């Protein structure tokens, strides 16, 4: 059982979670995640052999629907909240982002 969380682990988790934490946040979260994980460790005492996991409580699971094309947001509505977008250009309408390849 992992006994605690190290600073390096917190930095690695922050990278996975796409969070640019500052050093004081890394320190704070290292301490707080240690506290919380120490508390939830109580679950390890419980015998769960053969117990199925519950991932949802919808009786019968989610319902199916026919796979049909239906109206959805118009491009102007979809782009209305974008921090940066190209609207109705010859290439079409799209979200604009920083370069993806260096």
């Amino acid at each position, binding site marked *: 059982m992992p006994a605690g969380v190290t600073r390096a682990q917190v930095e690695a988790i922050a990278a996975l979670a796409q969070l640019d934490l500052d050093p004081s946040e890394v320190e704070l979260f290292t301490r707080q995640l240690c506290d919380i994980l120490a508390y939830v460790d109580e679950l390890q005492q419980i015998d*769960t052999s053969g117990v199925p996991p519950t991932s949802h409580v919808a009786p019968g699971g989610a319902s199916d629907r026919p796979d049909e094309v239906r109206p959805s947001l118009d491009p102007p509505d979809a782009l209305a909240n974008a921090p940066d977008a190209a609207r109705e250009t010859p290439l079409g309408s799209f979200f604009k982002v920083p370069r993806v390849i260096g």
Partner: protein
Amino acid sequence: MTTPAPSATIRELRDSVRSGARSAVEICREALARVRASDPALHAFHTVTADRALARAADLDRDRDRWRDAPLTGVPVAIKDNLCTRGVRTTAASKILETFVPPYDATAVARLERAGAVVIGKTNCDEFAMGSSTENSAFGPTRNPWALDRTPGGSSGGSAAAVAARLAPLALGSDTGGSIRQPAALCGIVGLKPTYGRVSRYGLLAFASSLDQIGPLTLTVHDAAIALNVIAGADPADATSAPEPVLDYTTALTGDIRGARIGVPSRLLENGPGGPDGIDREVAGAFRTALDAFASRGATLVDVDLPHARHAVAVYYLVATAEASSNLARYDGVRYGFRAPFDRHDDALGSMYARTRAGGFGPEVKRRIMLGTYVLSAGYYEAYYLKAQQVRTLIARDYERAFERVDAVAMPTSPTPAFPIGERVADPLQMYLADVFTVSANLGGLPAVSVPCGFTAGGLPIGLQLVGRRFDESAVLRLADAYERDTNWWKREPAHV
């Protein structure tokens, strides 16, 4: 001009508009005037939609015949700010959505409006509904109408404060681990978390999708039943919404609870995570007195054991954060909301994401994303997330076994009354532990209602919770309503009305 009746219920207001005794515009104006007078001190609202509301009320008055039989004609309602409202800013109390204007309505909001309700504004909450005090709002805390130096609870604290301060007789909230029931208890009103799937989640900004459920906050149990009638039901836009028929929940409120069986989990109450001293003495006293009231009305009290319920907080904070870390991955500065500034020459997409999320999310949201990412990561998944899901099964089974013998399980909603603003901010784990009595209902997908059950000597409200069988909202509402008939705690008004 008639004096506004501060404690007017949904039923009273609706009936007065339907009968023509009052106009929807008059009622809307009064509600907006109360918001203007009280909200600077409370900060229950983020956004007040005064012009839109008055225009809508005028529409209702113009077309009186059409709205004569609608269940919420002219009723002012407040909407938690994590529910999408078309054309009205919806922030989830997060800087990352500070400017977001949804292009569609949440199904629950659309259903309220189709029933004749008038939306007067959007209420403050903990950021993305993560918290138990409304202190995690990026836009400042909400204050409790019973004591302005205390929190209203959370995360639907703005909704609870608005109803308690008589700014609106109905507010919608969302409840992932107690976020409707706990603020209802701390503000002295009724809060209902319906069965998972009873109300469509379409248009609710997702926190933990297997736990989230939308529900009403009201002054009375009868009002909660009226609101549930309107918002319940299957929705093609939410595949987890349930096909079970929607009843008229008001017909369950007969006052007759003779023969009903109420489970009391005495071992949990004595040996919860806070130990024997975990429950405030006055809360415990009010709870015991309430149980006597049920017995006097002819209900039978039955001791039930929920052996795994004391682990519900640990399970909850693993499951909810895992789901949150996934749900909140969508906030990346591309399609909506805040984007951190970047240098066109030096920065690439990944660093824009990471800086946007670092600058847009507050500390509690970051903490939960971090915890959730950790428990889902390779090497820890089985020890934490899978284990939590297995114990979730055991907790749900505990309740199923109890419901073979009882119609509802009774507990205090919160182990303490409203706590001072700032008291628990520095210690997230202590804040989490106070959710001990509410999180089980979410883990099991069960309906649960909080109803006022008294006051502390200092005048702070106390709430009683009743948890029922899946889709048996009728049972918990019937019990709560019968208790309310005997006590009428809701008629007491806070100082800041």
